Structure formats: C-alpha cells, structure tokens
C-alpha cells in the first residue's frame, strides 16, 4: 500500500502536518518496503483558492491508496473519494506513529470531510 502523509518534515520522525491542501509536502510511504519519497507541495501554499483540490489531484496522480493528514476539507475529500483514495485523520503524532496506528487498524477511514472549506 502507498500512503501520502502531509508533513513539513523530511523523514518518518517528522510530525503529520494538520493541513492537507496547504501542506508543504507529502511523504509517500510504501508499507511493503518501508521506503519513502517526498513530493513537494509548496506551490499550493500561495494558491488563492482550490489548494485542496490541487493537492488531492497531485496525490491521486501519485497513485496512493491512502492519505494520512490532520484535517481534510470538503473539496479535497470529494476529489480523493472520486480517486478511491482513503482519508485517515489524526493529530499530534509523527509519521511513523501514524503509519503504525494505521497498520494496527487504529485509524478509521473518514467518511466525509472533517473540517469546513475555507477558500473564500
């Protein structure tokens, strides 16, 4: 399974970033091999609107199966849902802790956005 985790750090010890649409980058983690790569997302930070849509499209294009993030808004969720990417939200944990929680089945997939959009 491939997971995109929102973060501002560069490795598994970094905290999960609370932002999805405006996350500085995504760490793409392969659960089978434990390998990971980084996907820069800083270009969304200055987007006037639609950062969530763009970030969701970006991780969907990276063909991930799941996203772990702090918060996910309605438009980002709609895109991820359409791309069959599951969304898991958590807070106050590092990437490796979050991946562990997911493996142990302690994170349940979101069935809708957990925050309101705020693009206006």
């Amino acid at each position, binding site marked *: 399974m491939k997971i995109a985790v929102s973060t501002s750090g560069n490795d598994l010890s970094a905290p999960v970033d609370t932002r999805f649409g405006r996350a500085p980058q995504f760490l793409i983690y392969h659960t089978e091999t434990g390998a990971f790569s980084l996907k820069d997302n800083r270009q969304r930070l200055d987007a*006037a*609107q*639609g950062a969530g849509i763009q970030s969701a*499209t970006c991780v969907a294009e990276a063909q991930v199966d799941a996203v772990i993030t702090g918060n996910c808004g309605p438009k980002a969720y709609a895109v991820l849902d*359409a791309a069959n990417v599951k969304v898991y939200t958590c807070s106050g944990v590092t990437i490796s802790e979050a991946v562990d929680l997911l493996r142990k089945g302690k994170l349940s997939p979101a069935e809708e956005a957990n925050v309101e959009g705020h693009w206006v």
Partner: protein
Amino acid sequence: MKIAVASGKGGTGKTTISCALANAAQGEVTLLDCDVEEPNSRFFIHPVIEEERPTYNLVPTVDPEKCTGCGECGRVCQFSAITSLGKVVMVFNELCHSCGACARICPAGAIEETPRATGSILSGRSGNIRFISGCLNVGEAMAPPVIRETLKQATESGLNIVDCPPGTSCPYVTAVKACDAALLVTEPTPFGLHDLKLAVETIRELGVPFGVAVNRVTDEHNVISAYCCGEGIPLLLQVPESRRVAEAYSRGEPINTVMPELNEALRAIPGKLEALI
C-alpha cells in the same frame, strides 16, 4: 454619467448616501444596487418591483463519451475549478471564473460551457428613481459576474448612482472601474481613515476620478478632512452625526426627509464629480 458610491470600510453609509443622492436628484435618475451580497437600497427607496430575472455564469460541462482523460483542462484552470483524475473529471462550479480556458484547450472537444444561475436582477421604480438591484444567490461566492450584469442596466446618458460593495477586492474593483467617477464614503475615525486610504490607493490605480464624503461628522475639522486636504482630494460632503438619521434609518426612510438641508449639497455632487473627469 455613472457615479460609484464606494468605500474601503463597510458600514460607513454607502447605501445611505446612494439613496440620498438618488432622492435629492430632481430629474430622472437610476439607482443601481451593486452590493450584491447584501443589497439593501430597496429598503430606503421602496420601489415597486416590475421584473426579476436570473443572471447566469458559464461553467464547464464535460461529455464523458468524448473525454480522453488527458487532464489538460485541470492544468489550464487557474482557479482549480476543474480537475481530472483520468477520465473522471470533477467540476467545482462555485470556483469557476467562467474564463472558458478549459473548453478551448480540450483537444477532444469534450467540454461545453453551459449557463448556471448564480443571482438575479430586480428592476422597478419609485417616482423619478429607476431602481435596479443585483442579488447574489445564497451560497455563491462570485459577486463580480452579478455586478457586471447589474451595471448593464445603467442608462447611457442619464445620471446613474451605483451603490458599491465594501472593501477593496474584486467586487469593489468591478463596480468602481465601470463608473465615470466615484464618491468614497467614510467616517471620521482612525478605522475610517485607514480603510479610506486603501480605497484611495486602489481607485488611483484604476484611474477613476473621485471625491470624498464623510458621514457621522461631529467636527468639520477631522482626520478625514485633514487627510483630504493634504492629498488634494475634493471633500464633497460632510453629513453631521445625528440621532434623527439613525431613527430615520431604522424606519427605512432616506436621510433627505430628516435632513432636507443636505439636498442642495447632494444635488451639487454629480456636477462636481463631472468636473473632475
């Protein structure tokens, strides 16, 4: 002539002054309420509404039969209003600026622009005042298209008073740049001055000639009059602070009824603004 009644700060009295200008006018005048997110001029004009018609924005509709999933539409869109996940194309209508780029770039000709109602325009009359009001539908975010449609109802030769939206962003710019001159309404407070400066900075960029009206004045020598004097901005009206105005406002009456002495100054404003053009 089209006169924009605008301000940086909200709640300074744009609607009050717009309605007062329209009421003071002696001949035929058109009042266009372009504060489409909260149009309320009608409460002070009491027009008989003769027509209400919807306004439309063009948004993309994708033909899934023709779509090849190339993703060009999503890449060209500057507003993230369309995104393609292979052949699943998602459109976020409320983010669409109707630029048409997606339809033009689509190599498969799979995108058609179709109208979608986002607001309405009310037209009516109250005596010598021809009344037009734009109204953005609840839940919509894009005010400028409704403002542009509202402004199309202005008369070519007569006097048009345009009650503008507050702030200095797209809605303000859309309304003000379509006008020949503007009256910036503010109040003699530090906030009023701060936001007036923003409005002045923006309007100078737009190249629309303007003057200032100060509302709720307790002393004619105030922070605004000092600023206007220093900047060489014509100060065209000072409306005194008065409980009578607040009472009239709460009854839905224009200030002309409780301060008839203002009518002469109000009638002179279009001429003074015309002289600046």
